[in-house]
């Protein structure tokens, strides 16, 4: 009993001693706005599987022997996708992945624009206009501004990863999107 009492007193004493430090930390955290701000903490593992399926179920006019993905901007998607490709070695789909500059986006079949480089969409769109290139963004709502598919976290659906798809943008690029993709997409104009 005495041991319990001493133990409890020690815990309480230790905790109370740290009140000013915890209080300071709390204040610092409250007013920390943009310093570490990121719109959402994406699950890149999930994004990687989504992107793989987008490629799998899209008909490129040039055929699908070897698809090259160009990534604009840093994103943890890249290592996750490489890990996924290792698991998919036996698949018939051959995919290569590399970082590119916006000016190189007409040299690949798929362009993935990282959240932090979303402002590059306009340059990519101008450069690849009407070319059969699947443009995917990690930030939502960009399929309204020229992207084919925009991944996003849906606040209204328990923060699930979902995607918006613009059929018009895909058709304009001569890309045929199969039902597997369309059935679960949020279609935008």
């Amino acid at each position, binding site marked *: 009993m005495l041991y319990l009492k001493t133990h409890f007193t020690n815990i309480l004493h230790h905790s109370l001693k740290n009140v000013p430090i*915890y209080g300071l*930390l*709390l204040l610092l955290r409250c007013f920390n706005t943009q310093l570490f701000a990121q719109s959402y*903490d994406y699950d890149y593992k999930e994004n990687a*599987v989504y992107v793989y399926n987008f490629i799998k179920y899209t008909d490129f006019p040039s055929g699908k022997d070897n698809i090259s993905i160009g990534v604009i901007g840093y994103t943890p998607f890249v290592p996750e996708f490489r890990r996924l490709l290792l698991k998919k070695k036996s698949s018939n789909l051959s995919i290569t992945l590399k970082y590119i500059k916006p000016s190189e986006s007409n040299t690949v079949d798929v362009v993935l624009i990282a959240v932090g480089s979303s402002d590059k969409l306009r340059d990519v769109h101008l450069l690849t206009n009407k070319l059969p290139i699947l443009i995917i963004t990690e930030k939502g709502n960009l399929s309204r501004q020229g992207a084919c598919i925009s991944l996003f976290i849906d*606040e*209204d659906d328990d923060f*699930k*990863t979902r995607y918006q798809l613009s059929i018009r943008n895909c058709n304009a690029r001569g890309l045929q999107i199969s039902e597997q993709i369309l*059935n679960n997409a949020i279609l935008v104009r």
Partner: protein
Amino acid sequence: MKKIYLLLCFLAFYTLLLAQVDSTARDTMDLSDMSIEELSKLKSRYKTTEMEKMVTQAIAAASRKPLSLKRSPSIVSVITAEDIEKSGARDIIDVFQQVPGIDFNVDVQGVVGISIRGLWANEGKVLLLLDGQEMNETAYSTLIFGNNYNISQIKKIEVIRGPGSAIYGGYAEYAVINIISKSAEDINGVEANVIIGQTTNTYARQNVGLAIGKKVNNLSFSMSTLIGRGQRSNSIYTDIHGNSFDMKNNADLNPTNLNLGLSYKGFSARFIYDMLETTTRDAYIDAMSKAYSTNFGTYMAEAKYIQKINTNFQLQGKLNYKRCTPWLVTDIIDSIDAYPNYKIIADRYRFNLAAIWDAKYWLNITSGAEMYYDDAQKPDIHGNPQVFARDNTNRVRYFNYAAFVQSLIKSRFANITLGARYDLNSATGAAFNPRLGITKRVGKFNFKGLYASSYRAPGIENIQLSISPVMKPERTRTYEIETGLQINRNSYLSLSFYDISTQNAIRYVVDTTSFADTPEGYLNSDKVISTIGGEMEYKYKSSLGFINLAYAYYSVLDGKNDAANEVSIDKYANLGIANHKLTVFTGVNMGRLFYIAPSAILLDRRYGYTSLDTQGNPVLTTYTPQMQFNIYIGCNNLVRGLSFGMGVYNITNEAILYIQPYNGLHGDYPGMGTEIIFKLKYNITFKDEQ
């Protein structure tokens, strides 16, 4: 200096570390062979913060189809179970102090009620729902607050700080409070809780609660109870003539509450018994020679069925019964005391049918009809017959028919809510209440522009005690705008402004000389009552702790208030209600087990008529700002399932005063002085069946 530098380095490092904490947690689930179909059916893998959950949770009370807090076509404050527990709240008054725009005042007979946005709203102007059941009593439509409601069994409270008549009808003129209890799944076991409060010279509260809940397949059952005793104050009350008494043992608040819930597939049923036994010596104007019992009892039962016709269309049917016996005074009253016996048994039968149709992905339409029937009786008391004043009979009946419709439209421009409700009452006539809400999200900001018409349906006694030849419904128009900002993943700020304007306000008057048998009466005010103001709410939650900051300001617009509420020396204030109110609730986690939660409630200057001059005219008293400071230290799961805490409320022994918000000649009613509380909660969780 070196130590400070080290501390700063540590803080910076720790903050960096905390910023990354949420993003490092990952599971090892293999998704690589999943199809899009399978991925879309996955549960969310996104690790939400408490704040993200709060601002995106569905708000049931704001629209017929629940929308997230950011998109709801109302200005909403949400208080979660964690907010309640960690703030160390003693009762529902402490809980509502966290909401901007809410304040508390005394009515009569020891009843402390609610004010909203500078307006006294306790009598039929705020709808309070407990698990969907209307807690306003049916005779006068009033509410009573203090040591009631089992707050440890509350899962969430949604406070709609604006009108809701387009959905709920005549009690939701200024606000809607929706209390949602923990469900069977939330409890999933047995939970017991105790709160003990002690002041210098007496007990403040001694309450015990028990809850049981279990879900087996499609069948859910929950039960929660609260039983206890408490007191409003340990201070001295002085009436307008200077007569005083000690509130100790003269202002009891003894609650008994039973809440049963049952659901099976689309069917659900609920039964609530709520009784608050009080004693009062303050009566209406003159303090009495001793305290008499004044009790507020309600039974409520509901049966509800939801039939999903297909994925886009569902029907909801609800049948409700409520029996109220409010303001019950049956003690034998000494001849020296002016305190009449009173007993009313008011029954309300309600039927509601609604259809909810997702017509398009961008369009939802809800429509339906509601009917209720009020049947009130006044039985004899001690052999003395009672009658309703106007009809001179001991039984009255009223019907109310209503039809409602609401559409939610998602567009590129914004989300638009359009709705209306038409009520036709056999005693007070028709009331049509449309609403329009436009909500828009732009990045981290969200905006709301709201307009609503609302009304207060006069209660049975409002009609029967009417001094006006015809008691008309009170009509209100409210304009609101709100901007919300998700500052970061852990904090959210909202700023709102409103303009409220009320016509035909139902005014309560107390004049013992004019009413020989009963000291009260009602009339429609011939003035337009109007307040404008703004509210700010800042919430922060993380593993380090929480901050709930609420600030509210109101001003009477251009002297637009009723003679009963006006302050002769300040045309911007209403009686009894502070123009500025600031509340700060904070909590700092100290390791995994302990937290410390200081809080403060600051009220600006207030006014009240609480004494008489030598000619017998009421004298206006100006009250200096009131500051209440509290501290609570809690411990979670010291032993599995055991939580407890201790706190000191009103540390400085500030004179907490509830001031009457109309010129009713009632003295300022004291609240509790310094109170030491001890809370304990223990729950045993049932093992989940495989």
